[in-house]
């Protein structure tokens, strides 16, 4: 209160004409200020004061705050941008969601009918005239009662006509879905959507008012989807006005909206992982004084600058000039970082299946990447060459396989990836949703700390070798949070160790830009979540996302949960004994087979391999099986520890694979009559199952957003859950419905 009074006093002192401007003794909020009629000079002065003193404004990134030079710069509705750019982003959004658009318009009709019935003479007026709309909303109760149910039903039948004609129109205008709405509706609907989204954001996020016009526009485009799809917030606003939003202010959608706003626009949360640090693996226990706190994050680059830079490269990508510039970039790198870059290039050669080990990978690739699948094409787009090789398999036979030989020229790889990914800008993908491959640089700081920079060639500054920077070859040094920050800022780390694996991710993004968009948004949230230690401790978000994006076979998933969550209120020791007892009786193996079978269905696996073209699953499972084998043999050491760590952080499916493997070993041990080994394996089996049960139980009882899927799958009406809505976003319209009918739906790809 003191602050407010002081601020009023300050304004009074500094602006002589304050009384003329506002005779009331109350202070202007930013919102009131924006709506007032100050002269240009007064506007600038008061604007400056507000920016300096209003805590809400201080939270907004500097480049996004109001510009006090002229009022126009802060007003989105008066700018020319609205009709072109906002429409553009909303159109792009609808483009991917035609079915949802149809549903939304039907809801809109019904809502409007429910509100004004006999008084509406023009839906156009309702959509474009805010005063008219507010009046109708205010009087809706009376109007509705007056007109009666038949009148409502009669007007509601407009929705029937729309529902019948819309699919036909979409079929007629497949490249212009808005045309399918009807020419007359398009413009008022878009105007209505833009202004409504703006009102809603302003209601929930006071900082929005402090932003300049360009930043507001960008925010509307970015957050519009969270308001429109699913349109709960929009329709609550439409039916009950801004006051009605209070009833849903604590909902997940609103929380999500607010969080997204923070991540996008606020100073603290919008820091981009251009440069970050993590404690190095501790070799000796340091004393407290010698432990350095992580370095502060580098200030984010201007969004506008980012857009300009990306646009520039996108323009280059349409010409051969991109290849020339990339060649030059890597030549420069060769000069400065020759040794490390050589390692990266050597690795591309090593990955070309010229060794026995790589043939095995080729075999796996053959199993997982089927020719003529979209992901197969994406690999080819990245410069992979398809070749046939003969491999002598374990029974001594020679078998022919198709292998994909990776490209060996880094410049070409980046060129191809850039062209394919930047091409998404023309398809309506926002600059803020792109993920591009990036090199990782690292520098040792002190004894225990390594700092990193993730650099997109031609887009980001290259750190200098003379300052101690070198190219990273191993991804293992990147923690989950570092990785999330990099992905969240649109940079996919591409290092020698994970070269093939990471290219598989980039191939994913090329194959399905929707996944790329969702992935980036996910990692933005994840980076934020992981930054908060208390949440981090409870979050296994990555592993759940893994399961989540892989596929959706609802029945299998439900069966898995049922099978993995059978016991309540039993302590660990008792449960372990029960499991050992089950192993002896044979019940355990029956259950394991059932779980395994459902996981296979979940991943659409068939016979020896999974058919969904997911190369990224090959490598982790090989490593896990290796780790399990070594564990059985009693080996210990650093390798085992790191692999165990990997194992512990991997998906539920990994556990099942591990137990499948153990079962095979158990049979072998029984055949040999090796009682000590039998005992070890049985214990390992029981412990694995116990841990898996515990994880399942934890997932089901956890409140963390990102594992909502596990709770949602248990819901009686899955179609009303967040996960369903999320899945609608990443799947094509129509697929989902059939998924519920036959349980066979799956996405083509899944991240990480």
């Amino acid at each position, binding site marked *: 209160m003191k602050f407010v009074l002081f601020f009023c006093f300050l304004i009074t002192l500094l602006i002589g004409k304050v009384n003329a401007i506002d005779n009331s003794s109350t202070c202007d909020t930013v919102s009131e200020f924006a709506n007032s009629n100050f002269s240009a000079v007064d506007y600038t002065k008061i604007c400056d004061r507000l920016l300096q003193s209003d805590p809400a404004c201080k939270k907004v990134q500097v480049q996004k705050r109001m510009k006090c030079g002229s009022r126009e710069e802060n007003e989105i509705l008066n700018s020319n941008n609205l009709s072109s750019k906002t429409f553009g982003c909303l159109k792009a959004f609808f483009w991917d969601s035609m079915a949802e658009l149809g549903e939304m318009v039907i809801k809109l009709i019904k809502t409007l009918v429910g509100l004004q019935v006999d008084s509406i003479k023009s839906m156009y007026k309702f959509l474009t005239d805010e005063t008219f709309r507010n009046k109708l909303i205010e009087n809706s109760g009376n109007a509705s009662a007056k007109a009666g149910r038949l009148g409502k039903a009669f007007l*509601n039948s407009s929705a029937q006509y*729309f529902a019948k004609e819309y699919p*036909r129109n979409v079929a*007629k205008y497949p490249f212009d879905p808005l045309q399918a709405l009807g020419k007359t509706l398009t413009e008022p609907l878009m105007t209505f959507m833009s202004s409504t989204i703006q009102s809603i954001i302003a209601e929930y996020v006071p900082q929005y008012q402090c932003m300049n016009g360009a930043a507001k526009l960008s925010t509307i485009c970015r957050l519009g989807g969270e308001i429109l799809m699913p349109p709960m917030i929009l329709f609550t606003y439409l039916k009950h006005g801004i006051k009605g939003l209070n009833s849903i202010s604590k909902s997940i959608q609103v929380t999500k909206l607010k969080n997204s706003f923070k991540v996008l626009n606020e100073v603290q949360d919008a820091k981009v992982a251009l440069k970050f640090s993590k404690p190095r693996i501790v070799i000796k226990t340091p004393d407290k004084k010698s432990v350095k706190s992580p370095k502060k994050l580098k200030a984010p680059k201007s969004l506008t600058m980012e857009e300009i830079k990306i646009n520039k490269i996108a323009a280059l990508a349409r010409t051969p000039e991109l290849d020339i510039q990339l060649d030059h970039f890597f030549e420069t790198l060769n000069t400065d970082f020759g040794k490390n870059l050589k390692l990266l290039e050597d690795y591309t050669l090593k990955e070309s299946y010229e060794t026995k080990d790589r043939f095995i990978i080729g075999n796996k690739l053959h199993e997982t990447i089927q020719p003529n699948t979209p992901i197969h094409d994406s690999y080819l787009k990245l410069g992979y060459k398809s070749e046939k090789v003969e491999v002598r398999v374990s029974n001594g036979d020679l078998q022919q396989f198709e292998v994909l030989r990776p490209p060996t020229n880094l410049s070409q790889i980046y060129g191809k990836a850039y062209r394919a990914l930047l091409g998404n800008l023309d398809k309506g993908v926002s600059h803020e949703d792109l993920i591009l491959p990036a090199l990782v640089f690292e520098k040792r700081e002190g004894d225990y700390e390594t700092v990193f920079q993730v650099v997109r060639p031609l887009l980001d500054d290259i750190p200098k070798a003379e300052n101690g920077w070198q190219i990273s070859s191993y991804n293992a040094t990147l923690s989950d949070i570092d990785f999330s920050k990099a992905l969240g800022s649109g940079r996919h780390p591409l290092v020698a160790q994970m070269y093939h694996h990471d290219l598989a991710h980039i191939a994913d993004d090329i194959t399905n830009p929707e996944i790329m968009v969702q992935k980036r948004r996910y990692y933005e949230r994840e980076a934020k979540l992981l930054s908060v230690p208390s949440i981090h401790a409870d979050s296994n978000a990555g592993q759940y996302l893994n399961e989540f994006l892989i596929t959706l076979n609802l029945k299998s998933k439900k069966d898995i949960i049922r099978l993995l969550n059978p016991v309540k209120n039993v302590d660990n020791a008792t449960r372990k004994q029960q499991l050992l007892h089950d192993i002896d009786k044979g019940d355990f193996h029956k259950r394991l087979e059932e779980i395994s079978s459902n996981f296979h269905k979940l991943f659409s696996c068939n016979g020896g391999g999974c058919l969904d073209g997911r190369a990224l699953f090959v490598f982790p499972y090989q490593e896990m099986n290796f780790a399990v084998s070594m564990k059985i043999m009693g080996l210990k050491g650093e390798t085992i520890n790191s692999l165990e760590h990997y194992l512990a952080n991997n998906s539920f499916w990994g556990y099942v694979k591990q137990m499948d493997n153990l079962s095979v070993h158990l049979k072998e041990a029984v055949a040999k009559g090796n009682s000590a080994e039998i005992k070890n394996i049985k214990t390992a089996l029981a412990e694995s199952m116990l841990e898996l049960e515990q994880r399942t139980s934890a997932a089901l009882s956890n409140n963390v957003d990102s594992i909502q899927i596990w709770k949602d799958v248990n819901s009686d009406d899955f179609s009303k859950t967040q996960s369903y809505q999320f899945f609608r976003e990443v799947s094509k319209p129509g697929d989902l419905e059939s998924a519920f009918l036959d349980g066979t739906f799956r996405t083509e790809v899944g991240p990480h």
Partner: protein
Amino acid sequence: VRLTWDCIHRSKILYFYYRCLVVIILTIATPLAWSLTPSTSFIKTSKLQDITNFRHNKLDVDLSLMPSEIKYSDLNSNSLKDIDDLLEAKKEYGKMFGFYNWTLKNKKIVEAKATKILLLQGSYKNAQGRNVSFIEMYWANQTQSGQILITSDTIELKPDPHEFLVI
């Protein structure tokens, strides 16, 4: 007359729709002398919100079903006057979605087996420029109610109210 339509077994409401459908088909069938055989059926084509669209597998006829909140008592002589008043508003809605030349040719309330049905017949021009003939039905009994829309852009639908009394 027998129709094969699997969906009708799913709920009482759908069963009632089915009965209405029979009514409608008979209504349409008489003037056009259609011959319905067991092989003819409506195929579900899409579902947006609670509106389910069907298309006849042989005839160029579309049918949409939608639940309604109207009551038996809402269908009375005053209803027809209300429809006239509301028609202008409905035309506005139509224009928004590219439907023009909205014309209401007949309106009538009929009663059959404790069910009242408001029957409207007319035509409009759709976004593709084709004339579409429509029949709208609003029905209600003491426990249930619903809306049915039948359209065709190749034939003119002409209901014969007498048929309702037969059913």
